[in-house]
């Protein structure tokens, strides 16, 4: 028991002012099912955390439960975005921030690697053009 008589923080407890919604355990089961489906059929799954009502403090508890694994990537794409593989491989946490470091969106993706982390064909083409320009400039000046 904590000082104000609330049950000690566990998987379902929440901040003193708000009662828990009870959504954490079902969420973790959804992730478990998604991992099983990926292993058996290669099917990916995305969960939009914004769409699930969570009481204040519950999202922090969820993130603490998911933890951090081996990969931590920070993208700079019109504001930073953090992509981390959680302590469960195949379960990725993607957090999008705007330029003022406010959270724009948060997703859990169960997949091999989130699509947004991979290089995009359009960007590769644009980069190739820049490289070709740079090389042709270098050749003319060399």
């Amino acid at each position, binding site marked *: 028991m904590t000082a104000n008589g609330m049950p000690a923080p566990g998987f379902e407890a929440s901040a003193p*002012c*708000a*009662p828990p*919604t009870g959504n954490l355990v079902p969420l973790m089961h959804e992730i478990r099912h998604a991992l099983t489906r990926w292993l058996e059929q290669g099917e990916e799954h*995305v*969960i*939009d955390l*914004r*769409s699930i*009502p969570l*009481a*204040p403090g519950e999202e922090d508890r969820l993130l603490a439960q998911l933890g951090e694994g081996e990969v931590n990537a920070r*993208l700079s*794409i*019109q*504001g930073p*975005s953090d992509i981390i593989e959680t302590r469960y491989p195949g379960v990725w946490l*993607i957090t*999008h921030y*705007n*330029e*003022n470091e*406010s*959270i*724009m*969106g*948060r*997703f859990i993706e169960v997949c091999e690697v989130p*699509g*947004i982390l991979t290089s*995009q*064909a*359009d*960007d590769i083409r*644009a980069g190739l053009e820049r490289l070709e320009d740079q090389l042709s400039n270098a050749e003319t000046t060399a």
Partner: protein
Amino acid sequence: MSKDKTLGETLQERGISRRSFLKFCATTASMMALPPAMIPVIAATLEKLRRPSVIWLSFQECTGCTESLTRSHSATIEDLIFDTISLDYHHTLQAASGSAAEQAREEAMQENYGNYILVVDGSIPGENNGYSTIAGISNKDMLLEVAAGAAAIVAVGSCATFGGIPHADPNPTGAVSVSDLVKDKAIVNVPGCPPIPAVITGVLVQFLTFGLPELDQLGRPAAFYGNSIHDRCYRRPFYDKGLFANSFDDEGAKKGWCLFKLGCKGPTTYNACATTKWNDGTSFPIEAGHPCLGCSEPDFWDAGGFYKALSIPTEDIGKTAVYAGAAGLIAGAAIGASLRARKQSAVKNHERVTIDDLDQES
């Protein structure tokens, strides 16, 4: 002409990577409460989008809706929105003024007749057109003229959607809403005082991507106004348990109990405040300890008082009861006296009691 480029081409030109675009589509889908499976659909549709012309008319308003939109912290999304549209006319934001501005508006209307989007904030004086004019043109005339060539109309804020504060009792300017005046065009109502900025941009993006959204009986997009505050409020367990705050900052209030007794209009208010919240999901009035005003509902200024609970009658019932009692005394005395007189004459005349007398109800 810049207006003929697609959004995808425009973004590429500005060096915005496809990754950034995908991020925008993901966060937009989240904001519009669409499932993640729709993200590729949004991406495919938006990148082919050609910049539509938007004319923004501001009438009897406090500019709060524009402020809400432009003060938004999610600068990236708003920048992209305003880059995807060609904002051809907006009092507060445009550089031109005076007759040059009006001329720009007329040119944009002519060039894009039948295809531009009209966004309106502020209410319109319905009868005496002198109350609010722009460049000598009354609000009503300007609205009807611009609405005639619009593909669709988005009424932003409670003033444009329901009349708002100018419409509140006694409504000295005869203020009416856009839908009171324009009857032959599709109108999307985005009420709120002001509306949540993410909702304003979400509706615009939703409209640009998917066309006219599903609307409720008051013309509001169901995606954002489909649930009441009460049904998504995190304090709902306290309402269900019967734990209420009795006054501001009392014990119950400090424990975060339900604000029904303090006049919360959450049960009858439909908006996204409880889920989307304000200031990029920071908080919303109830979370800050203040009861919901019901600002996205019609006539919320005259809904019986912000601090009067929903179950309480709006008029002075105690006084009515006293007057009724007095009226009853007078009428009752008269009726009672006549009944007594009738009884006494019946006794005097030795009249018999019949079965019909016993069967009488009064």
